[in-house]
C-alpha cells in the first residue's frame, strides 16, 4: 500500500513540474543568454553594413571578393553557432564528436561544390 503511495507521489510530482524537452533543457542549461543574442544581432547587422559599404567602394577582383567572403563566413558561423546553438551543443555528451562530424561534412561539401563550380567554370571559359 505504501509502495503504491510512493509511486503515485512520484508520478504526481513528475506531472506537476513542467517538463522540458532534452533540447530545451540543454538550451536552458548551456545556451546563450538574451543579452548574448542581442549582441550577436548587433554584430551581424554591423557586418552586413560593412559588406554593403565595401561593395560600394568601387573595388574589383580579389580585393573586393575576399573580404566579402570572409565577412559572409563570419556571419554564417555566428548564426549557426549562437542562434542555432551549435557552439553550445558542443558542451553536451558527444557534442564535440557531432561538431567534428558535421563540421567535416560541411567543409567537404563546400570543397566539392567549389571544385564542381571551378571545373565547369573553366570549361565555360574555354580554358580546357
Amino acid at each position, binding site marked *: 500500500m505504501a509502495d503504491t503511495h510512493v509511486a503515485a507521489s512520484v508520478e504526481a510530482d513528475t506531472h506537476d513540474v513542467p517538463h522540458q524537452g*532534452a533540447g530545451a533543457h540543454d538550451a536552458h542549461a548551456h545556451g546563450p543568454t538574451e543579452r548574448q543574442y542581442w549582441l550577436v544581432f548587433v554584430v551581424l547587422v554591423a557586418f552586413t553594413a560593412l559588406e554593403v559599404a565595401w*561593395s560600394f567602394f568601387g573595388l574589383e577582383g580579389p580585393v573586393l571578393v575576399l573580404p566579402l567572403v570572409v565577412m559572409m563566413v563570419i556571419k554564417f558561423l555566428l548564426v549557426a553557432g549562437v542562434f542555432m546553438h551549435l557552439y553550445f551543443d558542443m558542451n553536451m555528451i558527444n557534442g564535440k564528436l557531432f561538431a567534428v562530424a558535421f563540421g567535416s*561534412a560541411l567543409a567537404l561539401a563546400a570543397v566539392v561544390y567549389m571544385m*564542381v563550380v571551378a571545373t565547369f567554370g573553366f570549361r565555360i571559359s574555354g580554358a580546357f
Partner: protein
Amino acid sequence: MTDIAVAPSAEAHDDHAGHRTSLGISNMKLAFWLFLGSECLLFGALISTYLLSKARFITEVVAGNPTVVGTMPNGTLMAEFAEEQSVGPMFDIPFTSLSSFVLLMSSLAMVLAHSAVVKGDYRASRIWLATTALLGSLFIGGQVYEFTAFYREGLTFSNNLFGSAFFTLTGFHGVHVTGGILMLVSLLFLSLRGKLNSDRAETVELVGLYWHFVDVVWVLIFTIVYLIP
C-alpha cells in the same frame, strides 16, 4: 517493491522529456539536423548552378551570342540590354540590404521566442513568434516587389540563362521562408490555445533551427548573388 513501483513513472518521464538519448540530443533534433543537411545539399546545388549559369551568361554576352543569351520581350537582344545595364546595376542593393536586416531581425525574434517559452513566459513567446512571422512576411513582400521590378525591366524566368538561375535560387529561398511563416503561425495558434508550454519548447527550437537555416542561406545568397559582381 518501491523500485518497481517508481520505475514506470520515471520511464514515462523520460519518454515525455524529449526522448533523452545516449547521444546527448533528442532523436527528433538529430533527425531535424539531418533534414537540414539535405537542405544544405539542395541550396549548395542551386548556388553552384547560379554561379555556373552566370559565368556562362557573361561569356555569351561578351561573345555576343544572341541565341544563347536570349531576346528581350521588346525584341532587343539581351546582350545589348546586358551591355547597357549589366546584370549588377539591376539589383537595388540598399533595398536588398533592408531585406537582409529584416531577416536578421526575425532570427533575433525567433531566439527570443524560444527563450521565452523555455522560461515559461508564454505571453512574451507569443509576441516574439508573431514578430518573427510578421518580419518574415515583410521579407517575402520585398521579394515579390523585387521580382516584379525585374520583370518590368525585362528579366524573366525564361528569357535567358541568368534569369532562370536567379529566379530558381531566390524563388526556392522564398518558398522556404513562406514554409517557415506557416510553421510560425501554427506555433502561434498552438500557443493561443494553451498547447505550447515549456513541455514543448523543443518544438519551438526545431522551428527556430529551420528559420535560422533560412536566414543563413540568405546570408550566402546576399553576398554571392547581390554583392559579388
